[in-house]
């Protein structure tokens, strides 16, 4: 009887996942998308393609994976180093957004790392917190 109950619940759960899966996928990074539009899209553009040799792309950017640990600090404190993205050099300063909370940063990074074809996994809050400890 218990077995039957469990398998019934599992099947139900599977159906619910299938049914709501599509819409959940879309809404996962809603808060990150909102923050992106406010803080990032003016320069990195709505589709993450950047601008010529001035502003690096985020879509398909190898920098995101290679510098995963530094990204939270960059969002909060900006970046003035010369960097290479997909083999191209970028030397313009990026301003940070000091008002971003840890949760904001996690949401933003999760949106950026999983949009426009990017599949770089998600940041957990602890990871963001630990990364921010290093750039105080």
């Amino acid at each position, binding site marked *: 009887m218990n077995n039957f109950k469990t398998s019934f619940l599992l099947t139900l759960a599977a159906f619910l996942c299938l049914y709501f899966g599509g819409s959940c996928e879309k809404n996962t990074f809603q808060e990150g998308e909102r923050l992106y539009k406010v803080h990032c899209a*003016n*320069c990195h*553009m709505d589709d993450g393609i950047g*601008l*010529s*040799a*001035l*502003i690096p792309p985020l879509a398909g950017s190898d920098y995101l994976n290679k510098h995963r640990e530094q990204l939270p600090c960059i969002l909060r404190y900006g970046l003035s180093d010369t960097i290479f993205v997909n083999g191209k050099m970028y030397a*313009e*300063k990026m*301003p940070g957004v000091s008002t971003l909370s840890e949760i904001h940063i996690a949401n933003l990074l999760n949106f950026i790392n999983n949009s426009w074809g990017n599949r770089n996994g998600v940041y957990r809050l602890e990871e963001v917190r630990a990364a921010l400890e290093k750039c105080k």
Partner: protein
Amino acid sequence: MKHFIFTVFTLFALILACTEPDKRVLPILGERDLADGDTVYRSVPEFSFVDQDSQIVTNATFKGKIYVVDFFFIHCPTICPKVKANGLRIYQKYKDDPRLALLSHSIDVKNDTVAALKQHALKLGVDKPGWYLVTGDHDAIYGIADDYFSVAVVNPDAPGGFDHSGRLILVDKNRHVRSFCDGTDAADVDRFMKDIDILLEEQFATR
């Protein structure tokens, strides 16, 4: 059945072929004066600035051309990159067409030196003449902004100010402002680019 499809297709092609091209005439924008009973449209006054190649840019630079005007500064964290991205679309479409030029005025005369403007232009991808990034006297730049924008902005005292409006402005061969758009809005820029084609047709018709 095949014949039917063919007929429908032909009809469609005919309808498309017979549709008139865009025959709108762009109005002359801006204030007008009455002189001896005639309407006189205000035009863009004399100016003289320096571009990214240290060349003097004046009204004479745009003689016999139509041109697109905007105002920006290099270290602009807000809307400028979007306006530049849309300006770049216009530049790329017309860079081999000597009838159209672009004129971007820096409003940060302290930091945007000729050398900085050159770097900016190169990084943006401006490798041909035709897009002038200019600097100059602070008052002259803000003054000419007033002249261009007095037609495009109903209320110049609006928060944010005209210099951050991100507008692109189209000027004809007679120094009259004929169209403008919000340079941050790709769809509005699409409409603006149609206006450019209409103006090119009007001013360079080989009739």
